[in-house]
């Protein structure tokens, strides 16, 4: 919404500058987006008069002019063909920046004659797209007058109107708030009624009272339509509206002045002598004023005559009955359309007209007759003619009811200390009326429905500057941290992974449905109806696709070596409980070659990082089962495992991404990855005491013994380790594989797994016989639980 200071002054007696108006608007809640101020841009330019213009001695197309300027008589070289003695035009002194040409004037000889300034065209001042010669202004303008004044250029204030304030969509509404804020005196916006001199020949029929409950109309005959006068054209042009003709311009003016949309029909083109506001009929078409034809539905309110639908009610008029310079009889419509239906019609048709915007937000239900009276006055002034009676069909829509209000509530809710008199005077200035203990909101304020609204009115006009800064009362929180164990875990995971060398990133929660399908997602319930892009149309089932694609993008930029992680939501369905928090990491090792022959990172590097992280998060890593079968399709077969406490308690999964998936996501391999589902990690029971269990350290040195077992190739080493460890839970402190071998010396289909067992004597040193007995137990356990035999 845009307006100018002169327009505001039609309704507000004020001496305030543009800057003061903008400041007052901001503090009253009107968010000014932008002020376009030609006066400041053209501050250096002023009116000048050419006294003499003679041919340049050395150039055919140049003239040397003697010019009376704000700086006295100046000799100026000018190339414009219309530079002539007696012309009043615009002068720029040396040193001026010329916006249209982007240069700053310097004293320079033009073919031997020094020019002491410049005479300007409209294009050079950027007041017109192009121009032919220097500006030609009225002789009555005084030398030295400012260019912006001479060209009637005004600052334009552009601001945003929040949806609660439809009254701010008219300049009067802004004037009212600024007046309440002390910026000036509001002029009475009332319009004197024009008595009709004949009955209105157009009948009004309302057959959809929910969509259009009230409609006022009036015919004016004997008019002469044509271009609007300069003041009206300038006013509309300043706020970005195109002047059409006087009748149409009058409706646009009132729309922006009073937030009261109107429509004018060429009465001679209305068929059947009536106007009907009804719902559309299936398949009906309306050729509208924007040149497009709209197919309406029974949800849309249309205006019709006996020929059918001729307009979209409250949204856009039809081209068949539009006013032209040939119009001699005009029918003026001042109606009220239901906000919700009008908003829906705007969405359905894609029309966002000034009328639609206002009706959708709620037009003052008491503005029908004042609006038509103001239009009558202007039409009679601009086009002549005589007006009929006003016909009013339907019933005025209800205004908001009165609100119970105790002035003490201002202090209770805002903390502001405002005298009761001042409270009543602010509310009075905004149009509220006291009715005993109740307060009646004005008809243009559909947003006010409770006492808190009134506190806002008082507080914003009194000024938020005065708000005290009051410390919060002592915290209701008990001592200790505020994070839940899960929240602490997430925080720890972030720092731990960053310390382990992974870069944290954030990927979209949505991905392409086809990509989601590759990772077990893409279900109907997670597809977006209105995605921002076709490839972001489905909620992700996993953090993997985002990270894998990130690896691909980095590789294509020339940086294939990536270790990335993300902690964020993943979705199994659209119910709250279907959302889980996943810690997802990928490792795409493409590090520099090493001079020492050391190995680069591999799947076991990633496993080490995963296990260290799970330890850090307090997961029961010692009890986790590593299950390799039944891997989902995005993992490389045979290089996938899940870590679980049981089939229904899967905590994490890791492995190498399937090459087909990498190809589909245009990402070079190998890519290793893990996922941890945070909520699946059991939470430790809260303990009342912080002390840790007592620590018993053995004074006896641990010893190690190596065992080489032969097992079937397919049997997991993990099974063997668990078997060894369980052989004696007291004495065996650890078992680690230190060699895996297949080949000569080991029977085909088998592998040799060498295990170093750490034995921790408890209360006495072990004798050779005891160690022998323990070894025998280890070998027996390995045979029984893991099918292993000691390698001979």
């Amino acid at each position: 919404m845009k307006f100018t200071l002169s327009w505001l002054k039609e309704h507000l007696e004020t001496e305030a500058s543009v800057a003061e108006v903008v400041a007052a608007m901001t503090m009253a809640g009107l968010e000014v987006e932008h002020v376009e101020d030609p006066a400041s841009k053209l501050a250096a330019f002023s009116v000048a008069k050419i006294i003499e213009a003679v041919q340049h001695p050395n150039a055919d197309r140049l003239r040397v002019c003697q010019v009376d300027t704000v700086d006295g008589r100046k000799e100026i070289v000018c190339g414009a063909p219309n530079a002539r003695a007696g012309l009043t035009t615009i002068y720029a002194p040396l040193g001026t920046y010329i916006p249209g040409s982007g240069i700053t004037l310097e004293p320079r000889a033009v073919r031997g004659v020094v020019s002491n300034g410049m005479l300007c065209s409209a294009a050079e001042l950027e007041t017109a797209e192009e121009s032919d010669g220097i500006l030609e202004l009225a002789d009555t303008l005084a030398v030295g007058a400012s260019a912006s004044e001479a060209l009637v250029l005004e600052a334009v204030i552009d601001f945003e109107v929040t949806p609660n304030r439809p009254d701010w969509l008219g300049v009067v509404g802004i004037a009212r708030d600024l007046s309440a804020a002390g910026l000036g005196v509001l002029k009475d916006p009332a319009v004197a009624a024009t008595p009709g001199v004949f009955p209105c020949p157009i009948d009004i029929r309302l057959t959809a009272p929910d969509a259009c409950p009230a409609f006022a109309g009036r015919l004016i005959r004997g008019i002469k339509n044509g271009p609007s006068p300069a003041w009206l054209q300038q006013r509309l042009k300043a706020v970005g509206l195109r002047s059409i003709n006087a009748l149409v311009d009058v409706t646009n003016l009132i729309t922006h002045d009073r937030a009261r949309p109107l429509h004018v029909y060429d009465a001679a083109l209305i068929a059947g002598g009536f106007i009907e506001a009804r719902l559309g009929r299936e398949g009906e078409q309306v050729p509208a004023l924007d040149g497009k034809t709209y197919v309406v539905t029974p949800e849309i309110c249309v205006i019709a005559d006996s020929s059918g639908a001729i307009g979209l009610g409250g949204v856009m008029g039809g081209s068949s009955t539009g006013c032209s310079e040939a119009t001699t009889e005009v029918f003026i419509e001042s109606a009220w359309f239901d906000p919700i239906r009008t908003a829906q019609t705007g969405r359905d048709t894609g029309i966002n007209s000034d009328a639609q915007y206002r009706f959708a937000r709620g037009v003052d239900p008491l503005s029908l007759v004042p609006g038509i009276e103001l239009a009558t006055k202007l039409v009679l002034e601009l086009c002549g003619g005589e007006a009929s009676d006003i016909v009013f069909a339907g019933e005025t829509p209800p205004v908001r009811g009165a609100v119970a209000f105790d002035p003490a509530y201002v202090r209770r809710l805002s903390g502001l200390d405002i005298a009761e008199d001042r409270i009543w005077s602010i509310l009075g200035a905004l149009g509220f009326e006291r009715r005993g203990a109740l307060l009646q909101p004005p008809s243009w304020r559909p947003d006010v429905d409770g006492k808190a609204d009134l506190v806002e009115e008082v507080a914003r006009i009194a000024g938020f500057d005065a708000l005290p800064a009051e410390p919060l009362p002592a915290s209701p929180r008990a001592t200790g941290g505020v994070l839940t164990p899960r929240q602490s875990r997430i925080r720890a995971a972030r720092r731990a992974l960053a310390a382990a060398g992974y870069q944290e990133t954030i990927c979209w929660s949505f991905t392409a449905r086809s990509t989601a399908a590759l990772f077990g997602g893409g279900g109907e319930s997670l597809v977006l109806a209105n995605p921002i892009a076709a490839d972001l149309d489905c909620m992700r089932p996993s953090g993997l696709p985002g990270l894998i694609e990130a690896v691909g993008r980095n590789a294509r930029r020339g940086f294939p070596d990536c270790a990335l992680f993300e902690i964020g939501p993943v979705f199994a369905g659209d119910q709250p409980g279907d959302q889980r928090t996943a810690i997802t990491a990928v490792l795409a090792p493409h590090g520099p070659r090493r001079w020492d022959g050391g190995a680069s990172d591999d799947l076991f590097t990633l496993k080490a990082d995963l296990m260290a992280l799970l330890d850090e998060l307090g997961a029961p890593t010692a009890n986790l089962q590593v299950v390799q079968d039944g891997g989902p399709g995005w993992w490389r077969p045979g290089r996938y495992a899940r870590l679980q406490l049981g089939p229904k308690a899967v905590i994490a999964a890791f492995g190498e991404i399937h090459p087909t998936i990498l190809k589909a996501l245009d990402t070079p391999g190998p890519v290793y990855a893990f996922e941890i589902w945070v909520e699946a990690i059991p939470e430790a029971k809260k303990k009342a005491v912080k002390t840790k269990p007592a620590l018993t350290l053995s004074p006896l040195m641990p010893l190690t013994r190596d065992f080489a077992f032969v097992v079937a190739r397919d049997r997991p080493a993990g099974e063997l380790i668990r078997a060894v460890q369980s052989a004696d839970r007291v004495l065996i402190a650890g078992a680690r594989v230190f060699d895996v071998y297949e080949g000569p010396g080991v029977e085909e289909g088998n592998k040799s797994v060498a295990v170093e067992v750490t034995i921790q004597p408890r209360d006495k040193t072990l004798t050779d016989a005891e160690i022998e007995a323990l070894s025998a137990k280890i070998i027996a356990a390995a045979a029984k639980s893991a099918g292993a035999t000691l390698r001979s």
Partner: protein
Amino acid sequence: MTTDLVDLEADLLARSTSAADTGVLEAIRLECLGKAGAISALLKSLGSMSPDERKVQGPAINGLRDRVASAIAARKAELEAAELNAKLAAGRLDLSLPAPARRRGSVHPTMQVMDEMIAIFAELGFSLAEGPDIEDDFHNFTALNFPPKHPAREMHDTFFLKPGPDGERKLLRTHTSPVQVRTMQRTNSPPGASWIAAGQAPPIRIISPGRTYRMDSDATHTPMFHQIEGLVIDRDIHMGHLKWTLDQFIARFFELESVVTRFRPHHFPFTEPSAEMDVQCDTSGGEVRIGQGTEWSEIVGCGMVHPNVLRNCGIDPDEWQGFAFGFGVDRLGRLKYGMPDLRDMFASDTRWLAHYGFSAFAAPSTASGLS
């Protein structure tokens, strides 16, 4: 001492001190001091001598043995030291060679800013409440006083999921305010997962961090972004408490003694009165300097919780009142750390992450600073 002994000693000492390596030296030792060695034979011969003869020869032979043995030992030490030195010299490493590259991880700036904000609000007694990203109309709009079909809903550019079999249209939350609703509204049905906020009785003091979504994409808007909202409900909380809380936050977050802020009326359906807070800043140099200059940058939307919202959540607005605020986390990070384009935050460019990311050890703490 006989000439023989003198000659023997001279020969052994000469050969010992000039032995080229420990092998030669050992051969010499065996030759004189071994079981069948020359000196061992001489020592054995002492037994067959007469006492007088032994008196003379004994000290002579023993002296010979001691001198030769110590000469051999000395030479042995010398040779071993030389051998060790030679071995160590051969083992020289070029330490200008690169060590294996170790990856340098980092924390994403948005998450760093989240942690900073959580630390500051934790100090002010706020705990964390969370809720799902996929919400229903009630929690995201209706309970928050957005009337059905009201134009205020359009301001939110909502992402919708396709309607389910029952016709219900789920949406991606446009703010984390639904978590406020979940915290205030006490219902009989459990929230679906233990991490999702359940209703609690006032007084309430929470922040709700998380992902939020709106259909927008340019340098200052992304279709997904992060918010931290706050909610305080108590008996006598007014706008002055809100102003104090936000001033406290801003000063701690930017670590500036005097940030000039301004409260400006605004409109949100879920607060009344509503305000936006701006911070004074200077953007003339191409980067934002908070606490300087004469421009204003909007930093947070806030207000007193609308009585209708309290009512919708089953809280009596005549007994309880309070405030709510909402920060854009990515935006705040951008203001503080100067990333030029918000879209880069979600592009996963490893160079960007290395440049704008934070060390694992830069966790905000009361001792090292909360920002």
